[in-house]
């Protein structure tokens, strides 16, 4: 059976695992943005938290992915279900680019724009909402884009702990020493990463308000 035939024969399972993979990546990125962007904003307001927060996110990212899955396994609730565990680990991995880009994006706003806005009497929230976030959006989206692409890749390892996703095929294929099986997982995963990169790049170009001054 050629590669194309194998794909066709197993298209149901490939599709299911692709959806599962999307679920893992989607949930993790949602959490990473929901946690990371506010943290990034926080450290622009409290310089003292800069090192601890960026430092922790950095440490999490430095831990080898499989090892991180291993560390989280004994935890109650998190370790009880494979997909919960996988999402927790993937969220941890995605945090650093999101927090860091939120921070640099906001700090990169033209200081005279910030000074004029403060001098006008904008409250801190108004400054964030009307000035800093719109102007930092391009950089923040770039961070989300990088984090998403990384997460698609690391999510293939989730299969090793039984969380499903396209890694299933990859591990199965390695065990069976069958290239077709490996590629049945690897190719969709690679395509997913490329698609995510493309879509988020498009969003970055078209959704960011005209900010060139």
């Amino acid at each position, binding site marked *: 059976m050629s590669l194309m035939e194998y794909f066709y024969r197993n298209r149901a399972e490939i599709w299911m695992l692709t959806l599962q993979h999307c679920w893992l990546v989607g949930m993790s990125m949602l959490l990473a943005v929901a946690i990371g962007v506010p943290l990034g904003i926080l450290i622009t307001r409290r310089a003292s938290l800069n090192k601890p927060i960026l430092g922790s996110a950095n440490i999490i990212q430095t831990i080898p992915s499989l090892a991180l899955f291993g560390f989280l396994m004994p935890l109650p609730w998190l370790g009880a279900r494979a997909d919960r565990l996988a999402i927790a680990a993937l969220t941890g991995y995605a945090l650093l680019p999101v927090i860091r880009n939120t921070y640099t994006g906001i700090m990169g706003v033209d200081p005279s724009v910030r000074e004029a806005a403060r001098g006008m009497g904008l409250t801190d929230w*108004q400054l964030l909402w009307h000035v800093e976030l719109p102007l930092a959006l391009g950089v923040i989206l770039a961070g989300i884009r990088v984090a998403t692409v990384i997460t698609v890749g690391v999510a293939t390892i989730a299969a090793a702990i039984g969380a499903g996703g396209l890694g299933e095929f990859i591990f199965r294929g390695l065990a069976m020493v069958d290239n077709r099986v490996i590629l049945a997982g690897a190719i969709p995963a690679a395509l997913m990463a490329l698609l995510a990169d493309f879509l988020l790049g498009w969003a970055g170009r078209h959704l960011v308000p*005209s900010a060139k001054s």
Partner: protein
Amino acid sequence: MPQQEQVPQMIEFRNVRYSPDGQRAVLSDLNLKVEAGETLVLLGRSGCGKTTTLKMINRLLDPTGGEVLVEGKSVLEWDPIRLRRGIGYVIQEVGLLPHFTIERNIGLLPQLEGWPPERTHCHVEELLEMVALDPATFRHRYPRELSGGQRQRVGVARALAADPPILLMDEPFGALDPLTRAEIQKEFLALQQRLRKTIVFVTHDIHEALTVGTRIALLKAGQLVGTYSRKEFLDSSDPTVNAYLSVLRATGPEAGA
């Protein structure tokens, strides 16, 4: 804030000291009063503390010692947001929001104050006309499409948007070419004749100081040398003033081109 009962001293500095690191005093023993309706120029060399003085009025900086009062009330008693919204602030770099149109830039404060869109729309039109910019041409443009002089005009319009009694201007025309600067100074004087705001204007340019100011406060190394009307300044025998006067003579219109 009540505009009907204008306290004679709109702004007052009492024994103000500013020493951010506890060692070098950027400002010391500053006692200064700004009367309603006047244009007080803070004149001095770079680093003499004039911008610092300005920023204490809208609390972008707080004094290390002494008191700053606006409309008779200590700035520390004012809600900082309300204080700033009652004071127009114009800086050299202008600081227009690059992702907003000119209309949105000028209308931002009215919008935040809850003005109905119709009223804001009309008001923006009035303000653009006041600063000699054709509303139809400019309201939908972005700051990047404007020249330096046009941007600063928008900056002034924006500062006037909520009709504040006080305007703070930090070397607002410093980045403009001499021709544009002269033009804008003239327009500014005409505007001030109409509006009669209380203006504190920072500059290091003696020509500008004499052109726009009704009174000059001369600062040197963080201390107030004195306050002078135009005539008093030109007639003064104080050595620091004389240093400026010699520059004035050397670079004035009579000086060799």
